[in-house]
């Protein structure tokens, strides 16, 4: 083997190990620093458990919303293109370029009581800010394009030949959608769903502003970790961090399975 190849390999492996693997290992090292029984005791921290439950709730609401929107809007953009869908296509990607702190700020400007709609909403007894709806709104914002970005290019690539064949053989539109269209975008959608989940679970800056960050009420798990560090409760913080790291490892596995299956589907067709 050539020497330059080996040198490059070692440089890259060292860089990735130091930058990514070391911090990941360090999280688990710290979480288990006082032994397994201390770790299990720390898992029963009421503020953290509450935060975990809230994060779970947000995932269960925000992810289905964005998946439904992402798949629907992709079908609209690809299959019924118009001047309007071109604007839509650009608009969906906008959240990716916006800092999470700015996301939090603009949601507050629009929906806080002092903001545009807050006063009107408050009159109906509806408080968006510093509650679950605000956290869902922030989560939906930051993860908005993650499904459609996976699905749009794939829908363009597969075209409509199979659908036309199915239709000419007598399948109705609903049957065509579920047996042909949905089947070709399943793994791309799964990839997008995993990315969306990761983003929703991990969101910090935007949720920090819109939630009010109140322990036992509006604190998600990421906020709880941050708060533990600010209160010099580092060990509890690392226990929370280890749970989120575990979740992200599971999601990473999903991502690589989805990527593998999508590639296989692609190779099979070509």
């Amino acid at each position, binding site marked *: 083997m050539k020497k330059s190849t080996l040198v*490059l390999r070692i440089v890259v492996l060292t860089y990735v190990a130091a930058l*990514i693997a070391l*911090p990941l290992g360090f*999280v688990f090292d710290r979480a288990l620093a006082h032994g397994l029984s201390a770790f299990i005791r720390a898992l029963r921290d009421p503020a953290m458990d509450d935060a975990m439950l809230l994060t779970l709730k947000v995932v269960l609401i925000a992810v289905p919303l964005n998946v439904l929107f992402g798949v629907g809007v992709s*079908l609209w953009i690809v299959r019924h293109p118009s001047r309007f869908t071109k604007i839509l296509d650009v608009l969906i990607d906008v959240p990716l370029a916006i800092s999470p702190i700015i996301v*939090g700020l603009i949601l507050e400007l629009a929906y806080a009581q002092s903001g545009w709609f807050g006063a009107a909403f408050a009159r109906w007894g509806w408080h968006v800010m510093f509650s679950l709806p605000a956290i869902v709104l922030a989560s939906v914002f930051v993860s*908005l394009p993650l499904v459609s970005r996976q699905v749009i290019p794939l829908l363009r690539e597969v075209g409509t030949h199979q659908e036309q064949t199915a239709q000419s053989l007598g399948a109705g539109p609903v049957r065509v959608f579920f047996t042909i269209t949905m089947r070709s975008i399943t793994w791309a959608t799964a990839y997008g769903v995993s990315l969306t989940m990761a983003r929703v679970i991990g969101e910090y800056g935007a949720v920090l502003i819109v939630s009010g960050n109140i322990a036992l009420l509006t604190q998600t798990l990421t906020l709880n970790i941050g708060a533990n560090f600010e209160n010099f409760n580092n060990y509890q913080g690392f226990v929370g961090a280890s749970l989120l790291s575990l979740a992200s490892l599971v999601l990473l596995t999903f991502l*690589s399975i989805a990527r593998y299956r999508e590639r296989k589907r692609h190779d099979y067709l070509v």
Partner: protein
Amino acid sequence: MSRVLRRVTPVIPIGAKSLAVTYISVVVLIPLAALVTNAFRGGLGQFWHNVTTLESIDALKLTLLSAFLGAAVNTVMGLATAWVLVRDRFKGQGLLNTLIDLPFALPTVVAGVTFYTLYGPLSPLHVNITGTWIGITVAIMFVTLPFTVRSVQPVLESLTFSAEAAAATLGASPFRVFRTVTMPALLPAVLTGTGLAFARALGEYGSVVFISNNLPYRSEISSSYIYSLASSNQNVAAASVAIALLILALGALVTFNLVGQVLGRRSR
């Protein structure tokens, strides 16, 4: 063609379309409109004043510097990593490929507190880089690595060896082959990755906020500055700085894309 398509794909009912438009309006458009009106509430002069206060300028400088350094390091390391993933073969390569995506999946706050503990005042490695541009840059390097790798990797995969082989048989050294044949083909993708990394770095918060210590004029990045303005009810000033940061991020994305396209066209 389009008439055929319309027949095949179930027509999307007008109700679903208006639901989608309402959704994107509530989530993205109305808040963005609120941002613009708030930023210019006091007129253009006030906007400019808010953006150019000493604290704001210092924060913007630090943000730009660390984003530039992080993106620059990862432009080189992203290319190197993509190269190793595509052109090299060794055991554990799949693990490396998966690990690259970790910064996408790991919550930024987890990265933030981990870097703070690893390289902070109680560092087990006895390195304290909190409150410095180095610490901020390290956090940004972590967050942006997948952008540069994943931009280059697919292009490198689709590149055929024939042109490189031709250059080599004509007597070009490996380095010359890389510089004159491989690199020009990769350049647009490399620059797209740099642009994505830079834009992401400008807005990064969770992974940076712990290691930076947020000292105004010294180690405060723009996102932290916007947060401190917003939490002290200075919404107009916060909106102004936010607009400035947004323009920088979007400008970087567009510029890097255009430069990449122009260079790519010239090389062909």
